[in-house]
């Protein structure tokens, strides 16, 4: 098996300005935040993001000027409110939104994963989503004579970024307790490259004890990096919950561009490693 173990810097370096990046994320859940911080530190520009539901990761990337478009179903931090930097970027026309409902996003990624030109869905019919996105959604006749369906054009992101519970140095990835969100199931299969951070790198023998928990085979993965607490401040079930205080701090700062920049400088640009990040946020002192 090929060695895939690397560093955050080297894992993110091959991502080009303008690339389409599929990001694991829910409102406050399971985002590969260490990879997101590295995108900001390396000053990537004009990235397109693919998310089912984006949260703080999207807001940071918007505030740091990394993204100029978003393909997704929703962006919100749920109880912590709307993502204000993202919102300001969209309202000012700096970030273009290609909004898709969930079955359309799943169909686009599913077609990408299976090398099909499109997959159909019955979702979105009657909504304004279709007229807003004529390049990727078309109402077509059912060739078998039923009511029309929406053809959803294949989406193949340049890279998928995900965070997992454990991996070996060859990029075999395990997830606990099982796959629940499409970011870990369909996004990596649709993407051209896959970059994974894992809470821990273990010997392959450890993976062999629970092969049913392996969700990505090493040959699908291009780079793997060990990043303990790599999803902070989002939750990473069952390891840790979301950081409420940190979300509230960001939500308050995000209303003002200068405060948002200061926050990102302090917690994203200044720490040059995960260890320095954990020191800056002052959580998990016992690990340091």
């Amino acid at each position, binding site marked *: 098996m090929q060695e895939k173990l690397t560093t955050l810097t080297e894992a993110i370096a091959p991502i080009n300005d303008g690339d389409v990046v599929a990001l694991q994320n829910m409102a406050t*859940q399971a985002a590969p935040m260490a990879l997101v911080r590295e995108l900001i530190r390396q000053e990537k520009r004009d990235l397109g993001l693919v998310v089912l539901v984006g949260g703080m990761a999207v807001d940071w990337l918007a505030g740091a000027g990394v993204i100029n478009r978003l393909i997704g*179903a929703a962006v919100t931090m749920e109880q912590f409110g709307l993502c204000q930097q993202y919102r300001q970027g969209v309202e000012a026309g700096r970030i273009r939104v290609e909004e898709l409902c969930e079955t359309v996003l799943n169909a686009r990624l599913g077609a990408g994963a299976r090398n099909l030109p499109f997959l159909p869905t019955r979702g979105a*019919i009657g909504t304004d989503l279709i007229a807003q996105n004529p390049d990727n959604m078309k109402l077509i006749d059912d060739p078998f004579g039923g009511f029309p369906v929406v053809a959803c054009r294949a989406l193949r992101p340049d890279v998928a970024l995900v965070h997992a519970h454990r991996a070996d140095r060859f990029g075999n990835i395990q997830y606990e307790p099982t796959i629940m969100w499409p970011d870990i199931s369909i996004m990596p299969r649709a993407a051209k490259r896959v970059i994974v951070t894992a809470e821990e790198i273990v010997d392959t023998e450890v993976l062999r004890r629970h092969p049913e928990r392996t969700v990505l085979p090493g040959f699908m993965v291009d780079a793997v990096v060990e990043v303990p607490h790599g999803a902070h401040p989002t939750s990473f079930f069952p390891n840790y919950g979301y950081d409420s205080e940190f979300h509230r701090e960001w939500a308050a700062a995000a209303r003002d561009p200068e405060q948002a920049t200061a926050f990102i400088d302090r917690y994203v640009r200044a720490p040059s490693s995960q260890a320095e990040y954990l020191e800056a946020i002052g959580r998990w002192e016992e690990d340091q």
Partner: protein
Amino acid sequence: MTSDWRDSPRAGDYSVDELMITVLADQFHDGDQACNGMASFLPVAAFMLARLTHAPELVWLASAAGLEPRPERIPASTLEAPLWRDSIMYLDQYTVFWDIVLNGRWLEKFCVGAAQLDQYGNANNSVIGSDYHAPKVRLPGTAGLGDMGSIGKQLYYWNPNHSPRTLVEKVDFISAAGFLEGGTARERLGLEGGPEIVVSNLAVMDFHPDSKRMRLKSVHPGVTVEAVQAATGFELLHPEGEVPETRPPTDAQVRLIREVIDPDGMCKREFSRRRGTSAR
């Protein structure tokens, strides 16, 4: 499970969130399956109340992720793990959850919250303003609502802030299909199902069977028909005869909500701040 809920007297003291929870709970029965998305405190409370009272066999897919969970109480998030504690099964959103939804045999009813709702029950959770690419307000987005309105489901809207800004003549953007332009517009596209009722903090509305325009069904105790109309951005149709009063919760229902389901008052947060994050 409590046995006295059915004969319990009307509550002498209840709040509007408790009233809305009981109205929503009444829509779900044994044999139904229900699921919730994020920021959906009132629907979650309604499912939990129904399961504790009249519908112990109501199946619940919490956060569309966990089957039949046993949360201690409503937590601060309706998407995060504490809600789907002790589940029987985890559902993969891509390969399991949406197949169950789309199949047509299960999960026929969905509770939907939206920033704007119009007179034909179309919902907007996408943008406020006429320019989609430079909106006045960028809202969270359609999430699963854009699917639910088009795949034959019955939609139960909840709106904790009944006002001319949330109930508008025409939505700025259709994120979820209601009755579109009304009449037979849904049928012409082959769409089954559609909006059933709207439960707001002032009243319950349904839709006229022919025109599909929104119609008053009942006003909450202490609220006048005139007040509801004044808080609505379009002319509401009226039922024949007197507009009935919404049945208030019983003592037992209120006790269950306060002591068992939502002792931390999470449902009340929907009333204190503007959110618009309800999805799926």
